């Protein structure tokens, strides 16, 4: 502090510099207070409320009943199963395809312009979610969608007559993939850039084949990034609400959809259970974020 007041010497304010010193420290704290107040009132307290009320019986007494119901009540277990499977499916598929596309663009010998284009487009696509995305896929593969009609007219095959529907977990997965795999491309492309030419040359000088290089050098280095991004994709799909709601409405019983219904009207007929449902989501997201943070730290080792 005193160093900075010394710097002020030579200005008109110099004589008052010493008494200003304590005031400046206050200033520093004041600058961050609104931020933390906001976080407390609109992030931590609402989360804490959910946590506390998860252990409340309808009459206000303490109970574990709600938490136990999460694992026993059929429609809640089903909702968690649906949410978890769609998250795992889209995380895996998004990671695999995103990686392949990133590889093709970065190392696959495609013209450099394609990479710029694809990165920009991935930035847009990874943010193109919610209601418009649902509409886009209804127009693509819904009952009157472009692909559906094309199959009817060109192939003479009415796919919906066979009982096929896109309004299930697999259909929704295809929709989610639209924002999932561009995210993978965005994160993997720089990671693939980080693979140094020297590593490959070192591997080849030691007599290693391409397979050796990937198996023993590149893949282990990329692993934390890959896993971390997969966790990110998992959480991304797990917390999604708008897309699923606009796409399939009540056809798919996801946890987020169930919580939404609980907000609009107590569909579980037990407010405490609604809280427990929300708490379950927070716990799963917390675990995945911790996993993500850990993987990021591992990945950072090689990016220096």
């Amino acid at each position: 502090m005193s160093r900075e007041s010394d710097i002020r010497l030579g200005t008109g304010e110099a004589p008052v510099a010493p008494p200003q010193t304590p005031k400046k420290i206050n200033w520093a704290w004041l600058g961050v207070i609104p931020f933390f107040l906001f976080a407390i009132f609109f992030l931590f307290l609402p989360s804490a409320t959910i946590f506390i009320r998860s252990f409340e019986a309808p009459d206000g007494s303490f109970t574990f009943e709600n938490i136990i119901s999460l694992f026993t009540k059929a429609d809640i277990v089903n909702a968690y199963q649906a949410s978890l499977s769609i998250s795992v499916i889209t995380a895996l598929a998004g990671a695999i395809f995103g990686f392949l596309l990133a590889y093709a663009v970065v190392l696959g010998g495609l013209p450099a312009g394609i990479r710029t284009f694809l990165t920009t487009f991935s930035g847009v696509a990874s943010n193109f979610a919610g209601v418009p995305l649902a509409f886009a896929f209804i127009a693509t593969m819904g009952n009157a969608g472009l692909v559906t009609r094309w199959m009817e007219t060109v192939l003479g095959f009415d796919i919906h007559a066979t009982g096929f529907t896109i309004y299930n977990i697999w259909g929704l997965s295809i929709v989610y993939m639209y924002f999932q795999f561009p995210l993978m491309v965005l994160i993997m492309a720089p990671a693939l850039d980080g693979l140094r030419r020297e590593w490959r040359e070192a591997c080849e000088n030691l007599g290693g084949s391409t397979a050796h290089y990937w198996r023993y050098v590149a893949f282990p280095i990329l692993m934390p990034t890959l896993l971390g991004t997969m966790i990110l994709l998992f959480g991304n799909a797990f917390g999604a609400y708008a897309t699923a709601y606009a796409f399939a409405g009540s056809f798919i019983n996801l946890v987020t959809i169930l919580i939404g219904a609980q907000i609009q009207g107590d569909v579980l007929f037990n407010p405490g259970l609604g809280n427990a449902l929300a708490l379950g989501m927070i716990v799963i997201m917390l675990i995945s974020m911790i996993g993500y943070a850990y993987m990021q730290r591992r990945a950072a080792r090689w990016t220096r």
Partner: protein
Amino acid sequence: MRDRPPIAPTATVKAIVETPVKTWKRVRKFNLWSWIILGIGLIYFFLPLLATFEFSLRAIKGRYSLEAYRIAFSDPAFFRSFGLSMLWAILTIIITLLLVLPTAYWVHLRLPRLRPAVEFVTLMPFVVPAVVLVFGFIRMYGRYTFMVSIPILLIAGYIVLSLPYMFRAVDAGLRAIDVRTLTEAAQSLGASWPTIIFRVIFPNLRVAILSGVFLTFAIVMGEFTFANLLVWPAFGPYMELLGAKEAYAPQALAVVSFLLTWGSIGLLARIGRGAPGQGQIAGAR
């Protein structure tokens, strides 16, 4: 061990002799695969967009027309919801900037010890999904009339959504310039704090701030979860409602919405070339 030395040179010689051929082959083979994967990716990217556009032109049976757009744009509720969303987006941007800028600046300059805490807060939106946060909002503030009669909770939710983007963008911007040196240089020239902040730091952060602003704008304009569950007539819920009662107009709005997202994020990519933090973790799903 005795056998090793004779083998090693052979392998090296073999590698040297074969390497150019091998590399050439590999590149060519992968080129084809790269193109195939790129093709699949592009089809998956563009088919839904094409289908949406085509669908929006089919409002009149038997021919393509802009009828769906006419229907969509002649509804006064469209302009009302669009205008409201825009207003809320601007409010969100202003408040988020007021919250994030001083915090990020002080964390860089004076309180680096607070960095983990601040980063933890900006990561919270991923731990607490939007639906869960609304649930908590309503459980906590639902009984206070002033909290539900004006869109405080809605804007608060939007701010939470945009915090990570804004913080990452500004943080990266601050990292790129040497805040301490700039601040001390300004101080030694006798600049006051407002001068330092508004005439030295801000102009250097313009690109970073703008990238955060555009992303926030795109997220808020299409946001559905908060607006729907807190019952505010924003653009997202309006689109969803229209989807329930109209056949082709919703796709017209989806096209508009996509152009909006494309516009703001494409612009971001132009101005903020390499501005980090964009699209890293997603917002309104």
